[in-house]
């Protein structure tokens, strides 16, 4: 199997690569970026908050600078401190990762004014895509379809009703200033419209301080499919195909795939071309993602938004295309040409990624911070794990609870699912609760296996899951768990006793010897302690 064509290094014009880069992020994405830096021989400066002094991204860096206290608005969002850290360490460029300041045009401007390179697009391009309305206007300019609807806020209920009837039900009322599902209402008919209009307005006012709403035709069973694009400063813009991100909860992606289970080369090409047009309209540079809603039935697609940064789910694209997107980001930021053309890009096999969160799926995905006491990470054929933690890591309440991304590759979607199943079974995180059990159930779900995905998947899955009987452990398994707990109880008692009496300590012995003492030490101690009266 090959991934696209063999790349020949472009030698015609070569810009010198950065010698030192500051990574303005933390966790798994900082670690991911560090890996590409190492391959390119770039020296790494990490930043950290007081809560992250022992973070993996600090341990792996060449230099690390504390930029403030734990709350991110005082540290990872502290533009002045981050710029000062870059200046004091002599970094030439700043990689923002995703989240935090990655889509903050002011930050990009501050980086540029400090005489440094921002690994990402221009502040102007970020600003256009940062606003819903200007992004929609850019789409119209690029002749990319947007969800049919109004482009200006609705002035009255009368206008809303007339507009709804013009586009036809179902329609979606959305807050103009919106996001995160606030001020958003799905309306099926005239009779529901008034109450939906009023609640959407009220929600928008309280959430965004702006009650203006607009109307879109509702896309039924929408798939959330996005296109990865890449642009260099020489005017080359390519797309690297799609990622299916329909499995979401609370408007947050949890499982992503490349290609989409639809796997339609014509649709890919049409969406890819639309995304490239969008990028060209704003004179884009670097890695970006254009998100679309795709109607499951008609395969019509509509522009949703553009993310002007690396995506969390970029590994699935990397697995299927064979390119290192972060490496390419450095390359084009340094002024080089893209190392591949559109014709070089091919898609081989299928990749799926799960976002592993420190959340309790049995308790409504409640955050589960704590210290990781043990970690068994999957590996072997087709497995890629982007993790930001280690045994002893503190998963803090201050930041996003995603601790790792597990991505798998298989020749087919079915093979990738089998591999994911296996990898999830291998994966164990102790000390905190994670979403691993949830994913183990998802991969067994028939609808998931059939690739019947849309943004309503999790809701349907949860109702199926509630009615499905849970697999019960066998009696022998239960007994073994009890025995293990009993052995641990005993060993802990012995440890306390031995340390208090400073006798020679069998706990200092390691490996097999100590292991055998599990049994031996129990009886050795009990013989004296529990003599029958």
């Amino acid at each position, binding site marked *: 199997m090959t991934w696209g064509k063999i790349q020949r290094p472009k030698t015609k014009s070569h810009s010198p690569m950065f010698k030192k880069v500051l990574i303005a992020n933390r966790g798994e994405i900082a670690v991911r970026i560090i890996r590409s830096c190492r391959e390119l021989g770039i020296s790494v400066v990490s930043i950290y908050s007081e809560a992250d002094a022992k973070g993996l991204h600090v341990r792996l860096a060449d230099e690390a600078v504390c930029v403030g206290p734990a709350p991110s608005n005082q540290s990872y969002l502290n533009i002045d401190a981050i710029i000062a850290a870059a200046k004091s360490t002599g970094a030439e460029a700043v990689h923002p990762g995703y989240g935090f300041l990655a889509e903050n045009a002011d930050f990009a401007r501050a980086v540029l004014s400090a005489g440094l390179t921002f690994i990402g697009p221009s502040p102007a391009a970020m600003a256009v895509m940062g606003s819903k309305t200007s992004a929609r206007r850019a789409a119209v300019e690029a002749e990319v379809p947007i969800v049919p609807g109004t482009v200006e806020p609705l002035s009255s209920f009368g206008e809303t009703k007339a507009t709804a009837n013009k586009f036809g039900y179902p329609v979606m009322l959305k807050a103009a200033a919106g996001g995160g599902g606030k001020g958003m209402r799905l309306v099926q008919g005239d009779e529901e419209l008034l109450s939906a209009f009023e609640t959407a307005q009220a929600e928008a006012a309280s959430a965004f301080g702006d009650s203006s709403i607009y109307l879109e035709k509702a896309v039924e069973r929408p798939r959330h499919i996005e296109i990865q694009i890449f642009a260099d400063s020489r005017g080359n813009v390519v797309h690297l195909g799609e990622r299916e991100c329909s499995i979401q909860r609370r408007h947050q992606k949890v499982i992503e795939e490349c290609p989409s289970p639809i796997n339609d080369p014509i649709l890919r090409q049409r969406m890819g071309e639309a995304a490239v047009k969008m990028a060209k309209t704003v004179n884009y540079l670097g890695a970006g993602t254009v998100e679309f809603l795709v109607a499951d039935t008609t395969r019509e697609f509509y522009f949703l938004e553009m993310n002007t940064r690396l995506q969390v789910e970029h590994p699935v694209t990397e697995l299927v295309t064979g390119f290192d997107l972060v490496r390419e980001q450095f390359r084009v930021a340094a002024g080089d040409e893209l190392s591949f053309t559109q014709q070089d890009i091919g898609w081989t096999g299928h990749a799926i990624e799960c976002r592993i969160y420190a959340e309790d799926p049995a308790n409504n995905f409640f955050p589960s911070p704590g210290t990781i*006491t*043990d970690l068994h990470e999957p590996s072997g054929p087709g497995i890629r794990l982007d993790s930001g933690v280690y045994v002893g890591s503190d998963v803090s309440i201050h930041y996003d609870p995603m601790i790792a991304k597990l991505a798998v590759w298989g020749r087919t979607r079915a093979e990738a699912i089998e591999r994911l199943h296996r990898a999830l*079974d291998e994966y*164990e995180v*102790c*000390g905190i609760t994670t979403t691993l*059990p949830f994913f*183990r159930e998802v991969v067994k779900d028939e609808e998931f296996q059939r690739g019947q995905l849309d943004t309503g998947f999790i809701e349907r899955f949860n109702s199926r899951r509630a009615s499905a009987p849970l697999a019960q*452990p066998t*009696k*022998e*398994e*239960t*007994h*073994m*768990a*009890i*025995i*293990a*707990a*009993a*052995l*641990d*109880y*005993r*060993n*802990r*008692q012995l440890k306390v*006793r031995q340390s*208090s*009496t400073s006798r020679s300590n069998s706990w200092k012995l390691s490996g*097999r010897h*100590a*292991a*055998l*003492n*599990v*049994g*031996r030490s*129990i*009886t050795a101690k*009990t*013989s*004296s*302690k*529990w*003599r*029958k*009266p």
Partner: protein
Amino acid sequence: MEEALRLRAVLDNHDCEVVIDKLDDILRVTVDGHSYRLEAHKIGEISYLLLNDHRVYDCRVESKSRERFEVKLNKHVYGITIADPRRLKPDENSDRHQRGPTEIAAQMPGKVVRVLVEPGAEVETGAGIVVVEAMKMQNEMKTPRAGIVLSLNVSPGDTVTSGEVLATVGDKE
């Protein structure tokens, strides 16, 4: 003749007895009336590898408190409470001659169901002092030493917390 270790385990409101005995490198264990001969290895800080008739059980044990454990095995998570019914808290040296009063403490939170002695009573080593019920299990708290019951701090019906001193036993005047 060595005596087996006897513990109580509680899982999902079901309590059972665990008896662990040694036979060379093999553990002889009885859980809830089922007997096993196991090969047991402790790996690292929290892993216990148990082999029963070649079947592999790789258990991860996290201790949540002195008695509460969370065991992960084959994707299942078990919340297990372990208690030593005869554990007498301050008695670390019961096989030696005791001097000074000895406190008899509750092993886990529970309710006092019976008081078996009166203050001032003379007791022999191992005599039952108080019976505490916890998680449907009745535990007889015994004195690790002979002597006089110097104080008795609880009565039937009292709720006690883990570690609470139920009685003290000391030397005769």
